[in-house]
C-alpha cells in the first residue's frame, strides 16, 4: 500500500475545516453570551442628566460595550476549553501532530474572534435600533457613523477579542502541562491585585501599565502591531511548551 505524502499546510486546512464543524458549540455559546449582554444593555450602557432649573436634559447611551466585554470573556473561556484533553483527543483521532493541532486551533480562534467582533459591533447598532423603535426619546444622536470610524472600531474590537483568546489559550495550555497552574495563575493574579491596591509594596506586574500599554495607543496601526506581536508571542509559547507532550 502506498504511503501518503505529508503536506503540513493541507493537514492544517483539513483540521481547521473539521474544527469549524466540530466546535459549532462555541458559536452557540457566543450567541447566548451576546443575547444576554444585549438584555443587560437595554437599560442603557451609560447616561447623563443635567438641569439648570428651567431645562432638564437627560440622555441615555446605547452602545456595544457590554456586548464586547462579554465577547472577550467568551473568547477567553472558549480558548481555554479547546486546549482541554477531550478536544485535543478529537484531533488525534484523525491525522495530526502537535503543531498542526495548534495552528488549526489558532486559525479557528482567529475566525471565531473575527466573527465575535463583527457581531459585537453590530449588536451595538441593534441596541440603538431597539432604543429608537421601542423607547420614546425626543432625539436620537448617532455618533461614529463614518465608515472609517466604524472600521477602526470593528478592527480594534476584533484585536481585543483575539488578545483575550490568546491569553486564554496560553493559560489553558499551561494547565494542560500541570494542573498546579489552576491554583498558581489565579493566585498570581489576585496576589498581584492586592499588592497593587496596597501602596507600600510594588506589584510584580503593574496591571495598570499593561492595560495602559494597549488602550492608550492612539494610532490604530501601532495598536494592531502591539496586539499582533503579543498574540504571536503567546501562541508561539503555547506551541513550544506542548510540543514534547504526550497525547491520549
Amino acid at each position, binding site marked *: 500500500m502506498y504511503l501518503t505524502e505529508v503536506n503540513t499546510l493541507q493537514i492544517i486546512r483539513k483540521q481547521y475545516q473539521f474544527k469549524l464543524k466540530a466546535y459549532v458549540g462555541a458559536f452557540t455559546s457566543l450567541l447566548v453570551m451576546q443575547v444576554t449582554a444585549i438584555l443587560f444593555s437595554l437599560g442603557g450602557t451609560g447616561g447623563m442628566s443635567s438641569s439648570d432649573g428651567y431645562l432638564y436634559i437627560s440622555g441615555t447611551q446605547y452602545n456595544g460595550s457590554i456586548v464586547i466585554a462579554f465577547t472577550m470573556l467568551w473568547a477567553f473561556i472558549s480558548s481555554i476549553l479547546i486546549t482541554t484533553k477531550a478536544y485535543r483527543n*478529537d484531533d488525534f483521532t*484523525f491525522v*495530526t501532530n502537535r503543531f498542526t493541532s495548534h495552528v488549526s486551533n489558532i486559525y479557528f480562534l482567529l475566525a471565531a474572534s473575527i466573527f465575535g467582533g463583527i457581531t459585537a459591533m453590530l449588536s451595538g447598532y441593534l441596541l440603538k435600533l431597539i432604543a429608537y423603535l421601542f423607547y420614546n426619546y425626543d432625539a436620537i444622536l448617532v455618533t461614529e457613523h463614518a465608515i472609517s470610524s466604524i472600521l477602526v472600531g470593528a478592527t480594534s474590537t476584533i484585536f481585543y477579542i483575539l488578545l483575550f483568546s490568546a491569553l486564554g489559550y496560553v493559560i489553558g495550555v499551561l494547565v494542560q502541562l500541570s494542573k498546579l497552574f489552576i491554583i498558581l495563575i489565579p493566585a498570581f493574579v489576585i496576589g498581584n491585585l492586592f499588592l497593587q491596591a496596597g501602596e507600600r509594596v510594588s506589584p510584580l506586574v503593574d496591571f495598570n501599565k499593561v492595560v495602559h500599554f494597549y488602550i492608550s495607543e492612539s494610532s490604530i496601526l501601532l495598536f494592531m502591531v502591539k496586539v499582533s506581536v503579543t498574540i504571536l508571542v503567546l501562541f508561539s509559547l503555547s506551541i513550544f511548551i506542548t510540543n514534547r507532550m*504526550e497525547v*491520549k
Partner: protein
Amino acid sequence: MSVIKCEKLTKSYGENKALHELSLTVEENKITGLIGRNGAGKTTLLKIIAGYLRKSSGNIEVFSEQPFNNLKVSSNMIFVDDQMNFPTALHLKELLYVAKDFYPNWDMDLAERLFDYFSFHPNERHHRLSKGMKSTFNMIVGLASRCPLTIFDEPTTGMDASVRKDFYRALLKDYIAFPRTIILSSHLLNEMEDILEDILLIRKGEKYLHMPISDVKAYAFGIRGESSAIKEWSSDKEILHQKQIGDGSSYIVVTNTSYKLAKSAKLEQFTISPVAAEDVCIYLTRNEKGDIDHVFNRG
C-alpha cells in the same frame, strides 16, 4: 520491507517499566496478533508506535521515521480502541465524512455498507452509543480508512459474539482485497487466531515470542500418563504447565524442543496431544505465583 522496527525500546513511568528493552520487527502487509496479559504493556507499545507516547530509551522507527509527534506516521496510520474520541457535536454520518477528508484511501462505499449492515442511524451521536456499538462504529472507521498501518487495540470490547465474528470476517475480506499492515491486540487469542499470520507475545513489557501462528501451534505438546513415569521422564525438561489428574496420572506441557529431544525415549506409555495456541500463550505468560489452584491449596 519492515513497517515497525524497535530496538531495546523502553518506556518507564518513574521506577515502573511498562516496556523493557523490547526489540522487534513487523513486516509489511502482515496481520500480527499482539497478545499479553492485562498490564503486559500492549497498549503502551501500540501508543508509542502510533506516536502518542514518547519512548524513554532505545529506538523505534515506523515507516523509517521516529513516530512521536510525526505527521507522516499519523497520516498513514489509524489507531482504533474503545477510548476513541469523536466530537460530540457531529452525527455519525458526519463523522464518516470527516474521516473521508483525512484519509486519502477512505472507502465511503464500504463505510456506508457496514454502517447500514450494523443498523446505525445517521443522526445518532457517538457518545450516546452503547459500548458494543461504539466499538462497532470505531471498527468501521478503522477498516474504511485503509491506512497502510492499521492498529486495533482490543477492538471487540463490548461487541456480542455475532458482531465479533462479522468484524473478523470483514477485516479479513478487506485485507485480502487491500493488503496492509494490521496489528490486532487482544487477550482473547482464540477468536482471532485464524486470521492472524504472526503472533507477538509480550510479558511484563518484554517480548516473549514472535513467530508465525502455525508455529505456535507446534510450539508445545501435552503429555499425559502415570504420574511417577511422567515425573521421571520430564525431570530434565522445561515444563510449561503441569496438572495432577485424580487417578494418579499427570498432564504436563513441554516445549517442542524438549519433546523432540525426548522422542527416542519411551513415549508409548503416554498420551500425546497438541496444545492450542491460546493455551500455549496462557502457559507462557503465567503468573510466577502458580495458577489459581495454588490459591486454594492451603494444605
